Every structure is written in C-alpha cells, then in structure tokens.
C-alpha cells in the first residue's frame, strides 16, 4: 500500500518561502492572495499487514525522521 505523509511548518514558525511565493503571486496580478505556506508531501510504498498497522508505522516514521516536531507538524494518510 501507499502512504502519503504531509509535512508543514507549524503555525507560528516563519515561512519565508511561503511569504516570497505570496508576494510573487500578488506581483503576477492574482488578487486576494492571503497567507501562503509551503510544505512537503512524501509518498512511500509500504508492505504492512493492514491499514491500521501501516498508518501506525507511518506515524512513527514521521515522528522519528520525516518531520522535525520542533518546527513541523505532519499528517499521515493512505493514498
């Protein structure tokens, strides 16, 4: 099965990349652009007994390596 892990900077952590993209979009004439946040999407193939096991493993991977919980939050889903 396939897991999708989405990693985003936590609210309150400055995201200069998102800020720059927001500026650029406004500069290109897109109106009404509010806050822009940039994150990562990690897709991974996994052999697991069932969905629950896969999700639990994904959570552990995210906590241990895929996200830095000091600055990032994450969400693990089945694709």
């Amino acid at each position, binding site marked *: 099965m396939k897991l999708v892990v989405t990693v985003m900077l936590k609210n309150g*952590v*400055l995201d*200069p*990349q998102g800020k*720059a993209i927001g500026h650029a979009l406004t500069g290109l004439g897109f109106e009404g652009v509010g806050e822009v946040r940039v994150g990562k999407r990690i897709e991974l193939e996994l052999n697991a007994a069932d969905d629950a096991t896969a999700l639990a493993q994904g959570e552990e991977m995210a906590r*241990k*390596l*895929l996200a*830095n919980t*000091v*600055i990032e939050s994450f969400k693990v889903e089945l694709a």
Partner: protein
Amino acid sequence: MRAAIVVFPGINRERDMAIALTLATGHAPRMVWHKDTTLDGIDLVVLPGGFSHGDYLRCGAMAAQSPIMPAIRAHAARGGLVMGVCNGFQILTEAGMLPGALLRNSGLRFLSQDCHLRVENAATDFTRHYQKGQVIRAPMAHGDGNYFADDETLDRLEGEGLVAFRYATTSGEITQAANLNGSQRSIAGILSPNLRVLGLMPHPEDLVDTLMGGTDGLPLFQALAAA
C-alpha cells in the same frame, strides 16, 4: 586533548576542521566514520560542516539517525565535549542534543561571507580564550542557519547563559542588519546546560591562519586544546 571528527556522508569541512585542531592541539584528530559505534578514548567530538546526506529531507535529519549517534549521546551524557559547526549544529538540534532548529535563511539565499560574532559566554571550555563581549570575525557558509526556538526556550537559553555567540556589528551591537540569516534574537551559537555541548553556524575553523585573512577562530581551538 584527544579529538575526533565524525565523518557523515556528504560533509565537506572535515579537512578544514582537522587543520584547525591539528594546529591547536599539535596532533591530528581521529576521523570516525558515521557507521562506527564507539568513541573510546576521545575527549572532544566534532561534527563538522557540509551537507550530510545531501541535506535532503532536512539539514542534518538523516545524520541524526546515524549509528554513531548513540555513542555521541553517551559521550555527552558523561560530560564529554561535543562541538557541532554548521551542518554539525543542525545535526545536534535534529538529534535533540541542543534545543531549537535551524530554518532556511530569511533571505532565502545561501550566505557565504564573513560575519561578526559577539561572545556572550566566555566561561566555557570553548570560549575561555575570548572575553565576554569580544567581537570576533568568522566566515559563514550556509543556506539554513536561521535559528528558531519558541519563546520559552529562548528565555531559558538567555536566562541560563546558554547563548554562546550572537551575530553583531563590528563594534558589538546587536542589530537586524547584522543578523544576516534572520535568527531569533540574533543567536549564532548555543550551549547545553552543562556548557559541554556547543553548536554554532559560522566557521571558526576557516579563520585560523593570517594567510586566509585572520586568526579570530584560533582561540576557540586553543581553549579546547587546553581543556
């Protein structure tokens, strides 16, 4: 002083660090491969700069999971000296050995230029040969050196004297302009509560020779050699 430099795949300032350590201690440090698991007989462990694992995922994230890390933690727990410079600092924060994180520079560009650091705590084995408040010059070379921690952590670091260096002007003022990468409270280097683990972004090891533009970094290594 028996020093070891940990070689993670992709780091690239291990030679610079070895030159500085050799100059100060009189003998070459031991190079330790990241897959090794012991640090027997070592007084100082250095995690050098570079791009461990290509800085893919997050700077230092994968190196922080290396087989050598438990030995480094045990060394620190025994009160051993540990210094992480640039990527080494990022690895130490990713490993949870120092608080906070290093984010992308606020200007979103790699910064390679000399910066000035104000010594905030001169009562450590790393900084003993400087004066508190002294301004030293050091090259910086990083894309992700923007120090971040929550306010509580920052207050604690400041309250306990665990800020080692701040970005400053040549005359020692802390200004926004001198804080090139946008670090919280201009923090360039921090210490562990027992003052035995140091992480810093700039490269004192690249300023230990007048021929390369100065020796402002040398006292740090001389202090370590005497520790």
